[in-house]
């Protein structure tokens, strides 16, 4: 608690009216930036101090009805790692940044190529050939500079994962291969971190949340090593499916962080947009 910071927050707060007609105390983004700069404080600390005093940083105003002030504070104090910031991971990153997850770790050793442009939200003409994690960091800063970012331009593997995901309260699957997925799940299990799996192929995809101790990926991919190619090699990856599955993954992350329950734990959600199909299977 810094009395002078709080005093200044209160001085710059304004009374606004929420969409439901209720008045609330608001701190504009401009005021937040100004205070952080003049008091030499992190933006996130200014936002947390405001929230603690019941003053809502305006950028989170539309979160509060669902998340509550305490929930928003908890998200700002959380750390989430995204392994792979392509189609799924890039969209998850965008959603988590707007939600106000306090620290986002991006892990990906790839650079953007032409064939990413049809779906990967972080890819654009000007960053073709550039590292995906560099675009990830830039995107977060552009959306919400209060968020701390850590980026690793490395391919995740058994050796480096413990170092890369350390300190995260949830890890998101943005990967494109089974082997690394199992490695991430294994690292999460050892480090007692929940893991939110997602994968896409064509108009279809699946989501599952794995807590340490759960059977996890084996229950959907089987224990047998898969000899063939993934179905997406036939179906490709059009733009709608990654964002849909990413949305579900981001929602799972929020529920994990806020301990809301009702996650896809020991369940797999399967969606096929082309067939207008959705099913949740209870896993053994």
């Amino acid at each position, binding site marked *: 608690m810094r009395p002078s910071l709080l005093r200044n927050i209160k001085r710059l707060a304004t009374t606004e009216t929420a969409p439901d007609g209720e008045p609330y105390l608001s701190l504009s983004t401009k005021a937040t930036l100004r205070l952080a700069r003049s008091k030499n404080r992190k933006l996130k600390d200014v936002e947390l101090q405001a929230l603690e005093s019941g003053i809502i940083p305006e950028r989170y105003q539309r979160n509060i009805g669902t998340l509550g002030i305490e929930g928003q504070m908890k998200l700002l104090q959380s750390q989430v790692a995204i392994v792979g910031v392509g189609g799924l991971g890039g969209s998850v990153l965008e959603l988590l940044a707007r939600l106000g997850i306090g620290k986002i770790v991006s892990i990906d050793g790839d650079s953007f190529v032409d064939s990413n442009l049809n779906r990967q939200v972080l890819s654009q003409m000007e960053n073709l050939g550039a590292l995906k994690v560099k675009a990830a960091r830039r995107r977060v800063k552009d959306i919400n500079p209060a968020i701390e970012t850590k980026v690793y331009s490395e391919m995740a593997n058994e050796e480096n994962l413990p170092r890369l995901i350390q300190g995260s309260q949830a890890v998101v699957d943005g990967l494109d291969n089974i082997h690394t997925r199992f490695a991430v799940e294994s690292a999460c299990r050892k480090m007692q971190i929940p893991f939110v799996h997602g994968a896409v*192929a064509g108009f279809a995809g699946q989501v599952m949340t794995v807590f340490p101790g759960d059977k996890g990926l084996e229950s959907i991919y089987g224990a047998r090593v898969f000899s063939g190619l993934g*179905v997406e090699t036939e179906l490709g990856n059009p733009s709608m499916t990654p964002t849909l599955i990413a949305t579900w993954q981001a929602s799972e992350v929020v529920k994990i962080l806020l301990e809301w329950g009702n996650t896809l734990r020991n369940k797999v959600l399967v969606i*096929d947009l082309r067939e207008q199909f959705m099913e949740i299977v209870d896993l053994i």
Partner: protein
Amino acid sequence: MIEVSVKLVSIFAKYQRGRDTSKVTLKEGATVLDLVREFGLPEDHVRIIAVNGKQESLDKVLTQGDSVFLFPPAFGGG
């Protein structure tokens, strides 16, 4: 004989070949594997199997009115 329904999506959708998947007739004692073979699905891709919303294995014996879902899990990260 028993009658079951099966939902085929993703790459399995094309194996319907115009058949009515809401009414599939199988012999008494038929298993999920028999159903997989009935439609000629690539067996190695059949990884998620659900009968009436609960996960089951290929050797699960089906009964009249069962609702079966077979899915080839995606690998891709988009």
